[in-house]
């Protein structure tokens, strides 16, 4: 295509021609890949060869951590139904010793230190939008400027009294998990030794450093809540200020799924296979109202994380499918070869195929 020549425009060299570069003429050198059978087989085999070993490794390390757990919300409290259990909880809320029970966990395999103690809640929607919004991160960090606590409603003012602001406000803080555990381990000589659970070094370092400040909470769960749940911030719950209470920090980190675990403590001691861990549970938290479940979990980790075979399975499935497809295609090519790129094979073409 020729460029337009200006007619009678005078002797000026200025024209409206577009620049004649590769990019304006759309002639950039390009690689135009053509999928050919050889490459296809090769690529699928390569995918299979790479993914299957990765999957095997992920599966091995995903199944390597040892986990022992037990559900305790139904066994710990008297009652045949959740309504009865909840009624028991309401009656005995002030009396801690009535809410105490013991469960036994058997260590199935050697658990090297550190052994992490989690509590697992099920049917608890920490990811519900209304719950997620109901907090004030600025308040938690001890900032005084730009505070917007109106989202914390109804947990913004204590008893609706304007002169009693709650700090830290919001539903997330108010519903702080208040079951506690004490553990003792006995080996085969049936000597029950107390197992110390540390609540230090259990929270995410960035959280401790940036998001939580040391201040005295105000009007924060001063008495046992009417719904029977919600710890205060004190030495009993793990620390008197938000920054010190790492269990609180963990609670404030919202979970993605309705069934989640949160780190409650760590045991910096090995547990031997065959020993029995006796867990004393103070079952204060009311999950009965919404038919939730509570469990206690002890688990170890590897470099990949806790016990979770999902990633390994995903890799093995993808890699395996890739292998199978490569094989199938190879067989098809050998059994029914067809000329590559034959226009005569085009369905709409009733014209005898001409090449080139």
């Amino acid at each position, binding site marked *: *295509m*020729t*460029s337009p*020549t200006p007619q009678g425009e005078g002797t000026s060299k200025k024209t409206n021609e577009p620049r004649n570069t*590769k990019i304006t003429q*759309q002639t*950039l*050198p*390009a*690689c*135009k890949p*053509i*999928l050919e059978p050889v490459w*296809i087989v090769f*690529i*699928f085999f390569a995918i299979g060869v790479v*993914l299957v070993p*990765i999957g095997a490794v992920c599966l091995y390390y995903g199944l390597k951590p040892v986990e022992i757990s037990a559900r305790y919300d139904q066994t710990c409290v008297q009652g045949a139904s959740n309504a009865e259990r909840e009624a028991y909880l309401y009656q005995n809320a002030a009396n801690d010793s009535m809410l105490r029970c013991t469960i036994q966990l058997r260590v199935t395999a050697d658990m090297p230190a550190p052994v992490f103690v989690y509590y697992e809640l099920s049917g608890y929607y920490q*990811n*519900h939008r*209304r719950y*997620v919004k109901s907090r004030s*991160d600025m308040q938690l960090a001890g*900032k005084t*400027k*730009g505070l917007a606590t109106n989202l914390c409603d109804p947990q913004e003012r204590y008893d609706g009294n304007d002169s009693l602001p709650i700090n830290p406000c919001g539903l997330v803080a108010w519903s702080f998990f208040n079951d506690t555990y004490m553990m003792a381990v006995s080996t085969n000589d049936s000597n029950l030794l107390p197992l110390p659970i540390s609540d230090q*070094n259990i929270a*995410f370092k*960035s*959280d401790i450093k*940036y*998001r939580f400040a040391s201040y005295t909470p105000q009007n924060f769960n001063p008495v046992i809540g009417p719904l029977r749940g919600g710890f205060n911030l004190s030495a009993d719950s793990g620390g008197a200020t938000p920054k010190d209470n790492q269990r609180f920090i963990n609670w404030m*980190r*919202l*979970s*993605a799924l*309705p069934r989640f*675990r*949160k*780190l409650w403590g760590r045991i910096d001691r090995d547990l031997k296979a065959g020993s029995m861990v006796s867990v004393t549970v103070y079952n204060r938290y009311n999950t009965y109202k919404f038919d939730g479940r509570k469990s206690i979990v002890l688990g170890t*980790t590897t*470099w990949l*994380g*806790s016990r979770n075979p*999902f*990633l390994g399975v*995903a*890799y093995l499935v*993808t890699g395996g499918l890739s292998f199978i*497809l490569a094989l199938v*295609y190879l067989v098809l090519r050998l059994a029914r070869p067809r000329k590559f*790129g034959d*226009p005569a094979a*085009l369905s709409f*073409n009733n*014209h005898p*195929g*001409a*090449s*080139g």
Partner: protein
Amino acid sequence: VAPLRLLLSMTSAVKRCLNRVGPYGNSTATGQEHGQEGEGEISGGVDSEDTDGELATEEVEEGRAGGGGGGGGGRGINESSDPWDREGVLLAIGDGANDVAMIQAADVGVGVLGKEGRQAVNNSDVAVPLFRHLVPLLLVHGQLCTERLSRLITYSFYKNLTYWGVLLAFQFYCGFSGQALIDDISGSFYNVVLTALPILVVALQESHAPEPSISLLQHPELYNAHSPLSACRFWMEGVVLPLFHSAACFFIPMYSATPFGTQPAHTLWVVGKASYMAVVVVVTVELLLTTRAWTKLLGTVCLLSVAVAFPFLLLVWRLELAANYLDEATVGAADLLFKSPYFWMSMVAVVSLTAGSRYLERAIRWIYFPDPFMTLAREFHRTTTTTTTTNNGP
């Protein structure tokens, strides 16, 4: 008389070209319509008293199916000027001031720069210097343009639906409360920064035919042989495919996440970031897999788009902190994620699942159900490699 003969020979050349039957299909529409119409055909006469050529007032009718459109001159168009009455797209070409009405009334008005002055050109959609340029305009630029537009439209739906699909899938897990798995800042950067440039480059540069200025002119029958944006292609590639891809981007990070000691990799916003990064990588890889012309520009832009996402996430919470704004969604999340093997392993898993299945579909297409341009590409590749001519641009 000499110009007259030149004009007539040019018109018959164009007609021959558009009527040509080639190995990729028959050029049905244009040839038959002209036979049926009986007027306004390419082989118009010359009225020496009126203008330099009635040629200038002729219409070249192009349509996918069916006829439509009037005869020569503005009168014909006005008879059926309601666009919904006609099937197909009407193109009018002219060079004089009397052609302006016709050019404006048509869907595509082409003005020819010439002795008649600038009136036609000033009112046209496309200006060409010579009449014969109409052929490359239609066959090369027209086909490339429609392919690029259809690619742009389909991909825009695809990338937004992939993002939306992740948010939708999460609703099943958050009690349908409307909680977004991905935080707002990442979400606002997605469309504007991280996925905007690659498709822009594709929409400007994509060429689905090899050496389009040569091959598309050699095979004009391709013009009607392949509809670039059929309903099937749009719905499958633009709506159904992103649902599958978003499922992969959601479920794999969500179910691979485990509490890892003190690292909260399984918490709401961190899993959301993992899903988000997966979506960004998957949509960019999908673009690369379906683009037929890989230029260095495209490669660079795609690489940059994905690469920018990483420092972006690392930087966002630091900037927020500097501005005294606390946000659980971002603080420390990206640092944690990029250090954990869970993130990299699940990213590789998502990309190999989505890209692998897409590559499989492409392979099946290329081998068993090629569209005419794929076959053309293969033929071209074979002839150029066997005759060892260089493959550089014209």
